């Protein structure tokens, strides 16, 4: 038997051995670059902050204690509020979008592509585009002036509204896609049956559509809420002086140099991800954006 055949015979001898061999390179890279760093991050959050940045080899809960200080609690609370508002707005706008796509027939593919496209474009470009629109001398204000509106420009940028708009447009695809996946499977006969039984439009929505769309809604909410908590670009470029969790963490690895604190904050976010992950036991009814493009 040639060397090649011997190798193949060995690789296929035990069930699953071939799979393990193929899995090994990618799995190793992911363990080394995803799993281990997360463990290091968790560990770092329990170390003491070094005097010139970096860490000391001493265990300390100071980082988590710091997170509970009123200043930081306010920031965390503010970020959570933004995340909740973003999720709610994404649901409010995303549901109609998913509904329309599911009804669209021939245009379904094109409409889905239009939803997915922004996800793949640079977040920086998108954020900058919104800055360009909303700033004091930006397009919106110029338009308003041209239409004879106020003399003074509307301060649109660097406001909570701008941040919210930025967060919502970033997260919208993540709500629309899982919702669409669920709504697509909705049998129109169910709605017709409900109508025959006397349900009016709002009742049909609340008692038929909403319960059946709930899994998609839950998946979308998870995919929106946690990443929004950690959003960096939008608060940084559009938020002005408003500090959110993302910019706070960014600072800890910049001038503020409190790595344990930054790690602790990141770890809390990671904990929420894992919680949501385990609750949903994996994607289930969620289709990844990547799956939607092909």
């Amino acid at each position, binding site marked *: 038997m040639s060397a090649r055949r011997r190798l193949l015979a060995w690789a296929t001898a035990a069930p*699953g051995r071939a799979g393990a061999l193929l899995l090994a390179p990618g799995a190793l890279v992911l363990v080394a670059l995803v799993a281990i760093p997360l463990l290091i991050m968790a560990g770092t959050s329990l170390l003491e902050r070094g005097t010139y940045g970096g860490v000391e080899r001493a265990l300390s809960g100071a980082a988590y204690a710091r997170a509970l200080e009123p200043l930081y609690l306010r920031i965390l609370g503010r970020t959570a509020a933004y995340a909740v508002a973003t999720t709610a707005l994404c649901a409010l706008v995303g549901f109609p979008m998913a509904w329309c796509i599911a009804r669209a027939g021939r245009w379904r593919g094109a409409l889905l592509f*239009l939803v997915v496209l922004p996800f793949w474009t640079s977040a920086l470009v998108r954020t900058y585009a919104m800055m360009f629109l909303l700033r004091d001398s930006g397009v919106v204000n110029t338009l308003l002036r041209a239409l004879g509106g106020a003399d003074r420009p509307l301060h649109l940028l660097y406001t909570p509204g701008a941040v919210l708009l930025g967060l919502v447009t970033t997260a919208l695809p993540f709500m629309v896609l899982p919702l669409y996946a669920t709504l697509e499977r909705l049998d129109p006969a169910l709605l017709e049956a409900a109508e025959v039984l006397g349900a009016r439009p709002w009742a049909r929505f609340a008692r038929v559509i909403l319960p059946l769309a709930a899994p998609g809604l839950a998946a979308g909410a998870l995919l929106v809420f946690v990443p929004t908590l950690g959003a960096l670009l939008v608060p940084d470029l559009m938020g002005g002086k408003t500090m959110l969790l993302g910019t706070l963490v960014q600072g800890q690895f910049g001038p503020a140099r409190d790595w344990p604190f930054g790690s602790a904050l990141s770890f809390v976010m990671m904990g929420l991800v894992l919680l949501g992950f385990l609750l949903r036991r994996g994607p289930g009814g969620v289709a990844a954006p990547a799956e939607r493009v092909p």
Partner: protein
Amino acid sequence: MSARPVPRSVGALALAGYAALHVPLLVLALFSFNDARWAADWRGGTLRWYAALLERPEIGRALRASVAVGAVASTIATALGTLLALALVRGGLRRARAVEAALWLPVVTPEIVTGVSLVLLFSGLGIELGYGTVIAAHVAFAIPFVTVVVLARLRAMDGALEEAAMSLGADELATFRRVTLPLLAPAVLSAWLLAFVLSVDDFVITFFVAGPGTTTLPLLVYAMARRGVEPVINAVSTLVLAGTVVLLWLALRLTRAPSPPPRA
């Protein structure tokens, strides 16, 4: 779905959503041709901002760096991700489902957490931040996307085709080369393009793992944007946008192809 038209409020909200997603980008592209330095009113079309790009060598450097990093990272990620997909579908692994579910973890993790954890890894190991660490980071977050794309195509492929090849005398390697790979090629190519786009467009993770000398295009645009709005940024952004759309469209076409191109 039933033929009843959509209520107006629903349609309006949907339209608002699409507008929010696309109007800023369209305006940005439009105004990259605007002949005005500070004002945002239309002063006539011009290509001078695109010409100005040529006078900014740092932009060309950053673009080349991004493309190089993207190409290297995509190639590595595509190779590893394809092997992963093969392992999950044809490898006979007992815990295949658990592994597949675990693959989603990097995707749902906030980018900032990924960035922070990687910075800690590299500094803990004493690895200097630079193009190498950026490539490593990009490989890591691209692998799950590649795997998902190739996985979908592999699953749609009839397993009997590979068995037929084996019944005709082709061993596992020959079967892969002559049957699996040609049929998988569009998906692999598409995955490469998607990984490339992800890499070139990435900001947050790159921000954390890039060293002082490493400037990719997004990092450069960020630095410029922090200093204030500038028409040149419009031009760069529009170019990046156009490139992304073209590559995405290509990736989409490749995975829609019903049968792969003929082989010699």
